């Protein structure tokens, strides 16, 4: 119940295309869903996050779509650029538990081909 399942493990997208990464969870107590972006040689950095009271959140070319009934959320990268090539991690947590940690997906290595 603690797992967050992320797919695909790797993804190759042409420049200008849409990149889509999916995550699924089981624990209905989760109420905070961030995405992190990691470039080679760097630690992951918070990219965008969503709460389950909204179905979509957009920041620039990055959009999180959230489906509470299906317990799934996804990251869409519009007009993908070579600079978006990175590893992306989804995560989830229960904010009502003050000591709760983030539960991480396994990561997706995204390559944008020029």
């Amino acid at each position, binding site marked *: 119940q603690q797992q967050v399942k*992320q797919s695909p*493990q790797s993804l190759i997208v042409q420049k200008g295309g849409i990149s889509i990464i999916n995550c699924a969870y089981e624990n209905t107590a989760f109420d*905070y869903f*961030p995405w*992190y972006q990691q470039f080679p*040689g*760097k*630690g*992951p*950095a*918070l990219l965008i*996050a969503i709460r389950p009271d909204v179905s979509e959140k957009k920041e620039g070319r990055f959009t999180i779509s959230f489906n509470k009934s299906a317990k799934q959320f996804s990251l869409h990268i519009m007009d993908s650029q070579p600079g978006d090539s990175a590893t992306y*991690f989804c995560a989830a*947590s*229960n*904010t*009502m*538990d*003050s*000591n*709760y*940690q*983030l539960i*991480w*997906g*396994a*990561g997706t290595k995204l390559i944008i081909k020029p």
Partner: protein
Amino acid sequence: DVKVTQSSRYLVKRTGEKVFLECVQDMDHENMFWYRQDPGLGLRLIYFSYDVKMKEKGDIPEGYSVSREKKERFSLILESASTNQTSMYLCASSLRGGAYGYTFGSGTRLTVV
């Protein structure tokens, strides 16, 4: 600019050595974490700490210990390094609670030979 600083980017150690990985944060965060990252396995939590002198085991604590004597510093200790501990080690910190972003260091690439 707030940051998490890991003392070494690259380390090469011999099997059986005692290894110390240091992490310092300047954000007054309560929570600190040590992860290891291996290809295809994502981020695996080794240990975390919610306060000074407090520590909790994560998913893969075997072969590791930690120390948190000051709020800003969290050390990971490999008691007797083994080749299967060759990995990227990431330190992170956050405010207390489950809704705050983690700030990660740049990582330490440890090779045990």
